[in-house]
């Protein structure tokens, strides 16, 4: 009894026929030899052999596998039934494929990004520690160097604690390669070894490298090593120029190490890179801390230890910018927290779509099985078991789910590739790929879909009398009650899920639009931006730095097509850009005499007008305010309101502690300008602007405004920079709109994806309503015919059918709105400037749904009311 024999049955049968034929021939020969006539010989031989057919049947049966054969038969039957209604089958398969594909894609991503452990040594013992931001607004904020040192002493439950920060640095051109500005990370010497990294070439840092006085060392990432140095192993021991200073390459990282992100290309020891002041300050928050727990220790223990240390430090240094609490999460959470909400939201949305798809297919199958009710009843009456009937129904849905699943896996494969390409900056995007577990998940989903879509229509086989249908007259009027209820429940569930999806999508979209329409406080149209940083090694005096800017700006403004140009340390929307502590000499008692801090910028005299930031009072900087003559400051509107209240800010002074060579009486406020946002979602707008020409601002962003297409100016501007300093790399050449788009890509992606799923759901629900109602109308044709013949008004018929379809829609809508009330709480954190319980949106969704449902139901209802009674009565 094996499958091979089972499948070779036809061949074996043919051979048997030959064999029997040979037997006959021999017997005929034998008989003739005994003296019979040929005819008689043949007849006797046949008689003697007996029934050839029975021999065939016996052998054939011996070779068959009953369960397998029944399954094949069911399968063949299902395929034939389905291929009789190709439109239904194709729709159902496509609907399932979409649902399954989207789900498997999202599962692939969720698994690779959120569930798989990080590729480090014993990653479950790695945690990430944070300070809470001093203003209490951020739970997971940057850590000050001094605080790290205090934590390290106090935390006995961790084996190792390491610190790192990221920055950008200029890699000088060499061997014909252009200079470039790279993202690099500086870390304490033990960070890489703590994570279990083994260098591909050379060594990692040792303790001796990690001092201010140590010779400069650097470790390359695999990517940079391949790209820039063609994988030359001889690079170890060589010197490269970073920010025009020589660094010795000591090692190369393995290719799998892509922490903290794929953009980071170099690593250097942090105590060498940062001043000792920076590493000792307890209120200058710049870094990240990773720790490895001791075996058996918990994250909570580590957190309570660092939190205690934090509070002690805070007690000793009670400045407003010293944080008063610590927080912790696993390293994996630290890496993927941004992706988490997005991915789970999308996963939720795709699950809804899949559920709707299944319900839809189930619904269509229910309708189909209704039309085969008589057939089923007859078969049951003749002794067909319920199990047999159920099996047929399940086989049919399994065939649909199987075909949908096969197509869906293909969709998922394409979808995953597309997603990785569309969102390369997503955390751990490089780790995303399909594997055996994903395949298993896919099979599970397919099985689940098949069962769900098959069992719902089969419910009626398992319960209740089957023979009722036979008792209905052949002029059956309305379909059985139980089926009607089931169908309505399915429709209501579909509509409900659709409403939930629509409200969530609507909220996300609204939030995104809100984000996009946020006024940054400056011109964003036709503005080109780019960034560069003057390396300290070549621009070691304020005079050199100031001179560079003074030469640059007139040249920029002279370029044809440039309407206005300005240079500032960080443009609006480009990030926090740093802050400074200050006191107000005129208000020594402000906030109890505590040191305040606010965001700082260096700006050239023409910056505000170039970016169209309005001057509210006073004046802009002037060209002569350079180097030590730079004694003025311009503040933003909220700064003025926050620190000077109703008084006139002009003429007041601001004393800065962190700057070198500051005027002893403080900077005089000469102007007040409009507020700008440093990020679309951030509201702190108290800013101080200092003259760029003071020479203390090596980081700069150029903003150039033009009348038309501004991108064509990118090359001429880079040429100007190249003429001034051929070894100066430029980065982030973007229009202002692109630069904003980058920061909203997450919101845009999530909202458009969820919206796409919601639209699919809406279409599915509409198709479901329409399909089922059309079906009901066909079923009830003769009933309607009788009604019309007996004088029913066509309007009444229309209402009758319409109410049949719309009732489940109304129930679904109500349930969906209630469900949305809960669902929107889950996406609350992703909403910006939008209330979760937005009644207007709920009403809009309700209206859209009512409209779609109305149209979907009206078509079959209208058709029913147009029936010609004579024809309707004859259809039976």
């Amino acid at each position, binding site marked *: 009894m094996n499958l091979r*024999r089972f499948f070779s049955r036809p061949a074996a049968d043919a*051979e*048997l026929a*030959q*064999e*029997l034929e*040979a*037997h006959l*021939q*021999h*017997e005929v*020969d*034998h008989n003739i030899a005994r003296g019979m006539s040929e005819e008689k010989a043949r007849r006797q031989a046949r008689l*003697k*052999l*007996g*029934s*050839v057919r*029975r*021999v065939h049947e*016996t*052998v054939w049966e*011996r070779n068959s596998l009953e369960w397998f054969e029944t399954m094949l038969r069911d399968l063949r039957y299902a395929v034939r039934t389905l291929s009789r209604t190709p439109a239904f089958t194709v729709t159902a398969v496509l609907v399932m494929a979409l649902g399954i594909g989207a789900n498997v894609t999202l599962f692939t991503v969720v698994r690779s990004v959120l569930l798989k452990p990080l590729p480090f040594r014993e990653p479950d013992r790695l945690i990430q520690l944070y300070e809470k931001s001093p203003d209490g607004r951020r739970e997971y904020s940057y850590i000050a160097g001094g605080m790290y040192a205090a934590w390290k002493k106090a935390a006995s439950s961790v084996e190792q604690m390491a610190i790192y920060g990221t920055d950008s640095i200029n890699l000088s051109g060499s061997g014909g390669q252009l200079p470039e500005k790279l993202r690099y990370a500086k870390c304490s010497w033990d960070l890489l070894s703590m994570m279990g990294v083994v260098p591909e070439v050379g060594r990692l840092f040792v303790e001796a490298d990690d001092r201010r006085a140590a010779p400069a060392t650097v470790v390359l990432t695999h990517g940079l090593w391949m790209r820039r140095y063609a994988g030359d192993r001889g690079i170890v021991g060589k010197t490269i120029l970073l920010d025009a200073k020589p660094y010795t390459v000591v090692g190369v990282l393995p290719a799998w190490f892509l922490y903290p992100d794929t953009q980071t290309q170099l690593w250097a020891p942090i105590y060498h890179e940062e001043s000792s002041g920076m590493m000792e300050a307890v209120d200058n928050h710049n870094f990240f801390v990773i720790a490895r727990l001791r075996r058996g220790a918990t994250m909570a223990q580590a957190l309570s230890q660092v939190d205690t240390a934090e509070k002690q430090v805070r007690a000793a240094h009670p400045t407003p910018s010293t944080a008063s609490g610590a927080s912790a999460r696993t390293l994996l959470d630290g890496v993927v927290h941004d992706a988490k909400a997005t991915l789970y939201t999308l996963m939720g949305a795709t699950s809804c779509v899949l559920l709707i798809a299944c319900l839809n297919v189930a619904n269509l199958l229910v309708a189909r099985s209704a039309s085969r009710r008589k057939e089923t009843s007859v078969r049951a009456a003749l002794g067909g078991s319920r199990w047999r009937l159920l099996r047929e129904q399940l086989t049919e849905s399994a065939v649909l789910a199987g075909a949908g699943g096969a197509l869906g896996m293909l969709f998922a494969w394409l979808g995953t590739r597309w997603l990785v390409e569309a969102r390369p900056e997503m955390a751990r995007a490089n780790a995303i790929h399909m594997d055996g577990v994903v395949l298993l998940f896919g099979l599970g989903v397919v099985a689940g879909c098949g069962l769900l879509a098959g069992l719902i229509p089969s419910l009626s086989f398992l319960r209740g009398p089957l023979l009722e249908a036979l008792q209905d007259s052949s002029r059956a009027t309305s379909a059985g009650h139980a089926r009607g209820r089931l169908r309505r429940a399915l429709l209501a569930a579909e509509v409900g899920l659709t409403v939930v999806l629509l409200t969530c999508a609507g909220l996300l979209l609204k939030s995104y639009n809100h984000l996009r329409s946020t006024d940054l406080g400056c011109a964003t149209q036709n503005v080109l931006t780019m960034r560069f940083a003057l390396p300290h090694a070549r621009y070691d005096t304020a005079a050199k730095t100031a001179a560079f800017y003074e030469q640059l700006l007139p040249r920029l403004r002279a370029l044809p097509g440039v309407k206005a140009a300005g240079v500032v340390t960080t443009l609006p929307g480009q990030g926090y850009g740093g802050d400074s502590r200050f006191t107000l000499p005129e208000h020594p008692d402000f906030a109890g005499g505590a040191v305040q801090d606010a965001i700082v910028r260096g700006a050239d005299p023409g910056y505000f007008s170039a970016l169209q930031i309005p001057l509210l009072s006073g004046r802009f900087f002037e060209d002569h305010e350079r180097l030590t003559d730079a004694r003025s400051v311009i503040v933003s509107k909220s700064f003025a309101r926050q620190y000077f209240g109703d008084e006139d800010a002009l003429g007041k002074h601001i004393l800065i502690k962190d700057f070198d060579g500051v005027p002893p009486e403080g900077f005089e406020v000469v102007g007040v300008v409009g507020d700008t946002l440093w990020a679309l979602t951030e509201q702190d707008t108290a800013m101080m602007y200092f003259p760029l020409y003071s020479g203390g601002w090596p980081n700069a962003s150029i903003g150039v405004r033009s009348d038309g297409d501004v991108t064509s100016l990118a090359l001429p501007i880079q040429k100007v920079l190249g003429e001034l300093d051929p070894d100066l790399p430029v980065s982030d050449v973007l229009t202002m709109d692109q630069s904003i788009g980058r920061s909203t890509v997450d919101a845009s992606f999530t909202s458009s994806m969820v919206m796409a799923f919601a639209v699919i759901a809406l279409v599915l629900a509409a198709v479901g309503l329409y399909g089922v109602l059309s079906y009901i109308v066909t079923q009830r044709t003769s009933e309607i015919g009788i009604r019309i013949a007996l004088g029913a008004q066509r309007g009444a018929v229309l209402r009758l059918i319409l109410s049949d379809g719309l009732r489940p829609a109304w129930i679904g809508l109500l349930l969906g709105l209630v469900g949305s009330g809960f669902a929107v709480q889950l996406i609350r954190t992703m909403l910006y400037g939008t209330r979760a319980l937005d009644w207007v949106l709920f009403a809009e969704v309700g209206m859209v749904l009512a409209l779609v449902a109305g149209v979907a139901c009206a078509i079959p209802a209208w058709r029913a009311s147009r029936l010609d009674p004579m024809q309707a009565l004859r259809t039976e």
Partner: protein
Amino acid sequence: MTEPKKAASGEMLQGTMDMLILRTLVMGRAHGHTIAHVIENTSEDVLQVEQGSLYPALHRLEDRGWVKSSWGVSENNRKAKFYELTTAGRKQLVAERERWQQVVVAIGRILGEAAE
């Protein structure tokens, strides 16, 4: 004249056919027709094989690995499928024969006692 013999063949004991086929093949490879005739002739026509039922039996024996088959040319120049015993088949024949003899002895005893 052949009537009583036919009756005997119709009641051939379950499993005896297999044994008879195996026994026939001890003499060498043979095709279905030969096997049928050998059984008939050796039993002096007591056992009339319904020739058709021979073939399912041959196939069953082949499935169990007791005989193997190959196509060849018969003594009167016709194509035929030949069967021959395998080693496992020989062992099986020995086992079956023993079992058969035990059964015959047992039945003989019962009948003998009953006759007394």
